[in-house]
């Protein structure tokens, strides 16, 4: 282990480390803590300029109810879910199939297709913007949930295929060969042998891609515009103008938008981090 375990150091080092930890957390998360406290402040506090002192009253319920009652925040959240869930399912499904093909078959062009998936994953969104927007309009999908669902499936398929391919490579070839000798069809090999073995990777990938898609802002600006379809990132940004000096509402809105990915991260933390490092460092 590096650095040397603090437990083996002296009492002084030990105690200072334990004191330094909570302090560093507070410093690191200071902007966020400030926003969270602001989100439960009363309007009187804000008007008086009491931004950093102890809140005079805790308006947790009032502020958060107001956010949902006076704006379309509830609708935005629902839209984000309606877009993110099918997009995650679609991207993971397509890329598991593709990842299997790239990991377990030798054929011409294998490496090039793999490279295209990886490379496409890094391109700037702006070079896709106009054609994707035109295509979406031509398909009659502009300003619908499907506009974003289809794009996210397609774009995330790049990263997801890289990820699944690297995971499936680790499955022993002997297992697949044995099934082939028995005359099991390729599809059944995929369904009954490969799929059960990649279950842990699927969870990791799904959690990760969920946060990517949930947090997307650019495509939410470009492919949709009405409140009925807009996801929470674009919704929040449009409320910025409306809530110019009502920082308590703005903060509450920001917290609401952040809750789902944060919740998912805390419940699936191990998967999330495995996913991030497996996708990034392997291969």
């Amino acid at each position, binding site marked *: *282990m*590096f*650095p040397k*375990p*603090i437990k083996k150091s002296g009492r002084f080092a030990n105690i200072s480390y*334990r004191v330094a*930890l909570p302090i560093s*957390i507070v410093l*690191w998360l*200071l*902007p*966020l803590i400030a*926003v969270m406290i*602001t989100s439960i402040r009363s309007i009187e506090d804000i008007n008086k*300029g009491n931004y*950093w002192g102890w809140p005079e009253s805790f308006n947790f319920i009032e502020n958060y109810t107001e956010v949902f009652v006076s704006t379309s925040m509830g609708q935005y959240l629902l839209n984000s879910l309606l877009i993110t869930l099918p997009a995650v399912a679609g991207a993971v499904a*397509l890329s598991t*199939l*593709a990842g299997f*093909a*790239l990991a377990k*078959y030798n*054929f011409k062009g*294998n*490496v090039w297709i793999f*490279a295209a*998936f*990886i490379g*496409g994953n*890094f*391109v*700037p*969104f*702006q*070079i*896709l*913007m*106009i*054609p*994707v927007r035109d*295509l979406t309009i031509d398909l009659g999908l502009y300003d619908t949930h499907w506009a974003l669902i289809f794009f996210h499936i*397609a*774009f995330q398929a*790049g990263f997801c295929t890289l990820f699944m391919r690297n995971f499936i490579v680790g499955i022993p070839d002997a297992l697949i060969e044995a099934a*082939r*000798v*028995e*005359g099991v069809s390729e599809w059944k090999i*995929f369904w009954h042998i490969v799929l059960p073995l990649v279950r842990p990777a699927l969870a990791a990938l799904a959690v990760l891609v969920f946060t990517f898609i*949930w*947090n997307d*802002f*650019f495509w939410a600006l*470009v492919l949709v515009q009405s409140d009925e379809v807009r996801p929470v990132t674009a919704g929040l*940004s449009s409320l*910025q103008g409306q809530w110019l000096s009502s920082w308590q509402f703005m903060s509450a809105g920001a917290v609401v938008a952040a809750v789902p*990915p944060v919740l998912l*991260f805390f419940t699936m933390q191990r998967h999330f*981090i495995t996913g991030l490092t497996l996708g990034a*460092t392997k291969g």
Partner: protein
Amino acid sequence: MKTTYPKSRLPSVRKKRRISAKLSPWLFLAPAMIIFSVYVLYPILSSISLSFYNWDGMGEKTWVGFGNYVELFDSDAFYTSLKNNLLWLIFYMLAPPLGLLIALFLNQQVKGIRIVKSLFFFPFVISQVVVGLVFAWFYDPSFGLFNIAIGALGFEPVAILANEDYVTFGIIAAGLWPQIAYCMILYMTGLNNLDAEQLEAARLDGAKRLKMLWYVVLPQLRPATFIAIVVTIIGALRSFDLVATMTAGGPWGSSSVLAYQMYEESIFNYRMGYGAAVSVVLFLIMDVYIAYFLWRMLRREK
């Protein structure tokens, strides 16, 4: 024991099998390949071709050859964006070393350290739109925490986001926050996989702290460093969300980056061809890194 002759060994079945073996990878690949080509690969080519036209998004396209590029390389706005992109690239490079620093700090086994680690990772999980709002509030000249802090140190308050000289640095700092968290996680995983025997051997040889870090630990962290640098470069060049939420490129375009300039020209000014040219330039800059990354990865594959 099985004594029946497996069906697959019969000639006709074997032939069918060979065809399906050739075809099946393509069947598995088809759905992902088709949708990826339609939404990612084709649009790249389409944007490149569009950059040679004038187009308002609805009417006729008119061929202008390199006209858009000539105009672009002649405009101040372009150089402002390019300069800002360069600043992003340079200062974003602080993320890997700072991430390593935090990872080293947190790589201990004390009670509650797991929660501490996940709290440090927090900024990466939330949307950049939220990060942008949080920092806009942090920088607010009349009550933001930033100004309270520098006021305590005896400095005059500064309206970071309204100041042409500071605005880009202010946005980059906001972007560094989640980026450092990302690098930290990569390094933390790397630190978990260090070779204990090598560390012990080096310790017996008397290697300490910095020497140990430089000669023993860092070489073992090379894969993590490589990925951290790649994601940081790509992140820096892709910067859009923070610029859009915090300043919309202002004041007077001084915080714009190529990604934002492209969006602005196409959506607000209806200059699709010109916007496409901006995106092509950004794409070409990024290609250098993408090509290098692909080359490294594929070389390892062989």
